């Protein structure tokens, strides 16, 4: 479980996060949504320790991130899987080597053990025949799946995804969403997804946090988001006519 309490973060005089508090539970798909510039990416980077925050606390399983020594932080990070917006695959390595990378860095497995494990997770993301391809030879959807495979290869306890289906066609986006959701259940991990894709919200949002101007404006789930009377979240989620109609139909039963 990840517990976030009163998180503040500024860049110079500009306040980005203004006291965000929430928690992310194990085995659940947690979505952080909000408009561009609402502080989603900064929030995620604070969770990952890529940005130092000004005040507040982030506890990973009751361990304060800031209280950890460098070695403990390194150990914790080896339990974190991350899917970046642009996939962030290593260009100089094949898809298989990309997936093997965390194992190579943090385990003492033999080459064949690492290869076997990489092939298992590549199979899991339906990429069993793409091992020898370079990332540049893979499509956007394939790259995202490789990034997911790399993120889960070392059996992480926490999975973070920054806009995992941005730039993908709707069908591939659903495949990626479902894959992340299934993996969350299968491995019983804490999954936090940054998204502004409303399909993801409706499909896999077991817990949804809505950020507005650096503050948590609303918290709920894909079921409660239909009934919310929070104006900010309604304006954001139901800005398109399609979703307005979906909501109307849902409320009519």
């Amino acid at each position, binding site marked *: 479980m990840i517990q976030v309490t009163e998180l503040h973060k500024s860049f110079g005089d500009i306040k980005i996060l203004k006291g965000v508090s929430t928690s992310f539970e194990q085995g659940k798909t947690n979505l952080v949504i909000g408009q561009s510039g609402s502080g989603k990416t900064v929030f995620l980077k604070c969770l990952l320790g*890529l940005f130092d925050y000004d005040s507040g606390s982030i506890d990973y399983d009751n361990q304060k991130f800031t209280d950890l020594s460098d070695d403990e932080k390194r150990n914790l*990070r*080896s339990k974190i899987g*991350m899917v970046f917006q642009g996939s962030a695959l290593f*260009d100089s390595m094949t898809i298989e080597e990309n997936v093997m990378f*965390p194992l190579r860095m943090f385990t003492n497995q033999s080459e064949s053990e690492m290869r076997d494990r990489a092939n298992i997770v590549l199979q899991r993301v339906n990429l069993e025949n793409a091992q020898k391809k370079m990332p540049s030879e893979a499509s956007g959807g394939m790259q995202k799946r490789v990034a997911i495979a790399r993120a889960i290869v070392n059996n992480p306890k926490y999975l973070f995804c920054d806009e995992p289906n941005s730039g993908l066609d709707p069908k591939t986006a659903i495949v990626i969403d479902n894959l992340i959701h299934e993996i969350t259940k299968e491995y019983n991990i804490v999954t936090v997804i940054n998204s502004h894709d409303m399909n993801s919200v409706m499909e896999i949002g077991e817990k949804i946090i809505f950020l507005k101007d650096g503050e948590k404006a609303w918290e709920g789930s894909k079921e409660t988001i239909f009934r919310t009377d929070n104006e900010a979240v309604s304006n954001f989620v139901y800005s398109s006519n399609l979703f307005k109609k979906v909501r109307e139909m849902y409320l009519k039963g």
Partner: protein
Amino acid sequence: MNYLQNIGTYFLMIAEMFRKPTKRSVMMKLILKEIDDLVINSLGIVAFISFFVGGVITIQTALNITNPLIPKYLVGFATRQSIILEFAPTFISIIMAGKVGSFITSSIGTMRVTEQIDALEVMGVNSINYLVFPKTVAMILYPFVISIAMFLGIIGGMAACVYGGFSTLEDYIRGVQLDFIPFHMFYAFIKTLVFAFILATIPSFYGYYMKGGALEVGKASTVAFVWTSVVIILINYILTQMLLS
């Protein structure tokens, strides 16, 4: 103020490079790859430039010795001194700042832009150690490149001298062997090792700390080349003053 901050950040990067080392087996592979990229792949251009610039040094020296009282073998002597003391260590390093330096800055900068460095950090890898340390270690072989540059420069000078009809082969070889001071080689290789460190770390610094997109990668490469050259020239002056004067 910005320069001071950059200098401070550069030295912090150097310190970070030696912390939290990457697994030995992974690091060995990285070092071998960097030796191939930075050292072996530079041999062709270094050989080409050294041979022909050696020839040019010889021709210009020979053409400027018009006094019949000056012996012809001084052409070989002047060529050797120019190549060993300055051309090979300094001039080749400036060229390498363009070739190797821009390669390092653009490859690390692209990793920054495409979040690959963030990916390393999130995994708990010390990205500075992973990216910069193998380059620095690989550049320990840089004196080997400079040795080849020295050898081919003198051979190029010999070819130009003999086939250009400026003096005989015997005179040239006599000049090359004249008053040889072994300390000059020591001086040249000390300079080379310092330049190797600069060539690996300054372009890495500009790549690692760059911000922005593809356009900024190009800009960072240019700035890295300029500052690597400036630092090489300054260090060259300081080391020459310290070791030769």
